[in-house]
């Protein structure tokens, strides 16, 4: 218990952070068919904006203002670039967002430098939230869980319970019909893209403070959230939720396990030198590749993902 409990809380905290990103990505994908490679770059911009604002006006102002800035940037990108590219098919859209990844990373390096910046949670969040089974659960991890649940709850309420959300859901199902009923589908696209970008911005403003704010932060999370979206099933929010917690769990539990594969698979030892090299690996060494192995396995055995309605 004293091992599993903190690991489980870490997994939930990290998994919810991942879900804030994956939810926006999969929402934008199911509405527009755009797989936004730059989604994690928006997360990074959220962290850096929040850092700069926090230095002037304090952490809490940054936490609110940075996501709004990122959402505005996302809406500008959708309105002025992606909408025009859409007519030329998906490949130019993918290429454009991939180019954005490069350019945003370079801009971050030029403006904020190559190293990590000193962006941390404020003193009020540095204490211990509670102690259980002999380990302390830090308050900032609880804060991540709280922010994630609050913002996801707000998005859920907006989409499931308001009139705007009704139009958004209708546009998901049949944009042409919604258009002919007199709604501006283009504006809905911009709004949803802005929502996704804003979620990424919140995740950045929180995740940057809890984890680390550096130019490489987008590259790592970027591929992980793609794995989540594929494993969960393209366009499925429920699948993205389960997959986020699964991947968050894999990463945070395995990193703490010091078991070698050879301990589990004793009989296979000594069959060949190549196999021995694989068996000598520790579980913690496997952690970085497991998400990708999981993705390949899902693609081979269940191509539509865990909860997807169509095949990947």
């Amino acid at each position, binding site marked *: 218990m004293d091992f599993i409990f903190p690991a489980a809380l870490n997994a939930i905290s990290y998994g919810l952070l991942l879900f804030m990103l994956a939810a926006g990505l999969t929402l934008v994908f199911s509405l527009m068919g755009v797989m936004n490679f730059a989604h994690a770059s928006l997360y990074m911009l959220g962290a850096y904006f929040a850092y700069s604002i926090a230095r002037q006006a304090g952490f809490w102002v940054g936490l609110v203002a940075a996501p709004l800035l990122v959402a505005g940037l996302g809406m500008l990108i959708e309105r002025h670039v992606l909408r025009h590219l859409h007519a030329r098919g998906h*490949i130019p859209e993918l290429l454009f967002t991939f180019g954005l990844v490069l350019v945003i990373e370079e801009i971050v390096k030029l403006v904020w430098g190559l190293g990590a910046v000193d962006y941390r949670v404020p003193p009020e969040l540095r204490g211990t939230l509670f102690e259980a089974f002999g380990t302390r659960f830090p308050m900032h991890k609880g804060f991540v869980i709280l922010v994630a649940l609050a913002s996801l709850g707000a998005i859920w309420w907006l989409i499931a319970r308001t009139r705007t959300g009704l139009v958004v859901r209708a546009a998901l199902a049949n944009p042409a019909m919604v258009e002919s009923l007199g709604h501006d589908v283009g504006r809905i696209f911009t709004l949803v893209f802005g929502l996704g970008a804003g979620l990424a911005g919140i995740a950045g403003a929180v995740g940057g403070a809890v984890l680390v704010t550096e130019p490489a932060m987008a590259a790592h999370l970027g591929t992980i959230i793609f794995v989540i979206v594929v494993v969960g099933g393209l366009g499925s929010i429920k699948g993205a939720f389960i997959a986020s917690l699964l991947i968050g769990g894999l990463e945070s539990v395995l990193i703490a396990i010091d078991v070698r594969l050879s301990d589990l698979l004793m009989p296979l030892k000594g069959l060949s030198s190549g196999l021995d090299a694989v068996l000598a690996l520790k579980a913690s060494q496997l952690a970085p590749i497991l998400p990708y192995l999981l993705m390949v396995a899902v693609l081979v055995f269940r191509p539509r993902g865990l909860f997807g309605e169509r095949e990947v």
Partner: protein
Amino acid sequence: MMRLQLPRAGRSGYGAPAVGAGLALLVLLPLFGASRYWLVLGMQVWVLAAYAYSYQLLFGRAGMLSFGHAVYFGLGAFAAAHALNSRALAAMGLPVEMIPLIGMLAGLGAAVVFGFPSTRRAGTPFAMVTLGIGELVAACFLMFPGFFGGEAGISTNRAALGGWVAANYGAADRAYVLIALWALALGAMALWIARTPLGLLARATRDNAARLAFCGIEPSAVRFRLMLVAGALAGAAGALSTLLNEIVSVESVSLAMSANVLLMTVVGGPAHAFGPLLGALTLTLMQSVLSRFTHAWVFYYGLMFILTVLFAPNGLTGIVSDVLRNARQLGAGGMARRYGAPVAAALLAGLLAIGTIEIAFFRDEGIGAARVFPAWGAAGLSLGCLAALLWLRRSLRGLA
């Protein structure tokens, strides 16, 4: 309509021999006493061009946007390094000219393994899966230090094996000829495959996969076969990079290397026979020459890529062939009247934008003028840049 009445200079029958003579000159560059620096740059262009030709086959012909092509390039490069270092192969008398074949086999093997999960679907899912497979292989490097050499990579020596034609290829001028000839052969192979039935079917999967399936041909099988060819060609290109650098590190399987080939192919032109060569030339020049003047060269390269995607989907070769075609129709005077204003506006806007960026970020070490201007110069230049962009927009409206 105009074009029919005019002689077609490019198709007069002298085109192919002229291009062949130009390429032969490039291969024989060492005869003209080029210095070691330019020879190494030239080899880099050839290696990257061979890599980009294999990618053009996937992306340009079949519309398969892979973000993990470095898997095949990198595994080919590592296989070649191990082959060069292997005593058993040296004892068997393997000539160094055949090292790219080892890379080709490695690339083919990797494509057999990874091709199945990635080529089942096209479009966006294909792009995401290749990205994941690329990360999977790159993340393996710390787990298998025996094969990937850990952080240090694997060092080798291209003079370790003897050759059939030359005694060894240690000297830069001999290595240049070997690499250039191999790269030409690989590029020619990729262009030839594009004209075979497989290449034509690949184009059909891009344009109308449903109809192809209706005709009784499974699109994913076509994609898988094309992936095998492209993987083998990329593996051979990776082996060439081992011969050039004599060291292979995890860089060569990284996402950055996958991104490079995509950028080169798109910037050069995904549909044109010279696209990959021009893209490789552009990347190498920016990487080695421009980087001496500014730290922001990657930013400029990324910006160039975005502008290409937005405004010139056929890449630099597309721009060149458009200009040539229009020049034939309009003549020099007509070209100047028609394109003078937009080109001048675009150049002015570009220069002012570069000036702004350089002054804002590297006043002490950037491109020439940045050292002279004070920091507030950036504000003035950016206003000027905005004005030039407005001018560009007006003159482009005049065109349409």
